[in-house]
């Protein structure tokens, strides 16, 4: 199951993080994980709106018998991140004072991957937990 949410305005950002929370609750994730992912989406979506103007956020339910997995893919056609290592450093920002966006989001999830070139950026995040039942 997957859900694609366009990111064009600030209310899309708010919608995307609530949609992720809702989906995770239905999948059986605890409230800590719901908050982690919703916050991480907020950070990334904010970057998309600021640097690329618009993009999309896709929520994908990847669970199997052993694990609950939510994968979130945030994509945009903006200028791209020229120096990923630098962008992942604490305190680094090219906009106006939001340095913790990427590294902060990375610390909240289990897997975090950035692929970026001029004209296309794709960030993939995952939270995975052992299924209890």
């Amino acid at each position: 199951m997957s859900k694609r949410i366009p990111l064009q305005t600030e209310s899309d950002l708010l919608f995307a993080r609530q949609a992720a929370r809702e989906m995770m609750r239905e999948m059986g994730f605890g409230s800590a994980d719901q908050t982690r992912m919703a916050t991480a989406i907020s950070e990334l979506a904010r970057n998309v709106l600021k640097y690329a103007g618009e993009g999309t956020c896709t929520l994908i339910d990847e669970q199997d018998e052993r694990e609950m997995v939510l994968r979130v893919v945030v994509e945009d056609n903006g200028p791209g991140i020229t120096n990923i290592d630098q962008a992942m450093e604490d305190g680094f920002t090219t906009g106006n004072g939001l340095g913790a966006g990427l590294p902060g989001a990375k610390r909240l999830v289990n897997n975090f991957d950035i692929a970026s070139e001029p004209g296309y950026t794709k960030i993939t995040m995952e939270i995975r937990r052992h299924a209890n039942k």
Partner: protein
Amino acid sequence: MSTTVKDEIMGIDLKQAIPTPVMAVDKDFNIVFINAAGCDWLGKEWEEIEGKKCYDVIETTLCNTKKCVARKAMDENTKITARNEMKCYGKTIPVEITSSPLKDKKGNIIGGLEYIVDISHSVKMENELRTQTQTILELSTPVIKIWDGVLLLPLVGIVDTMRAQQIIENLLNSIVENEAEVAILDLSGVPLVDTAVAKHIIKTVNAAKMLGAETILTGFSPDVAQTLVTLGVDLNNIITCGSLKTGISKALNFIGKKVVSYEG
């Protein structure tokens, strides 16, 4: 032992008598031999099996993949064991398959030998153990309200990352639910505190502080204190007490209460 009995036993085809499936294949996975137990499991006669590919007959989840034990045993020239699932008397059961390479006189690998063991009992035990571990995990992190506004969380046993996460969430939720101004985290029962665990503890203290509650750490054993200092863990901004007793007294002071002797 009399020679007659020995001769009689040695006269039996022991390969056939092994009470668990044994199978030999050539390098192209054609079945060269399968014993009686193997035929029984599959519910087939030897005539039906002879010359067929092993993956067409036993149909396990690893068949025809890189993880096939016979293939690995032949490729790597060593004994390989792996868990798998296969049909036995019409039912799919968990099995352990061990394979070793078969060589000709010059030492060239010409095939593989496999023997298959039913492990449904151990798998069942493992699952039970897992459920029990989960239960113990839930039981072992109680949050006790020892006074209005004071919580005690005694940690007992090994704290791994998964458990540490659970403890943090549990404590933070309890602080808000109970409107607790102080929480005591007692480590007397924790034999080992490594950097990862120390990080989780510091995280808990910082998160509790943001909520508006103080955390007092108690029960550092000499070993734990030594490890933490050696590891360079910074506990400077954290309130610590040697014993749970002084921790409780400090916590009570914090909420404006005091323990005094009762004298007539």
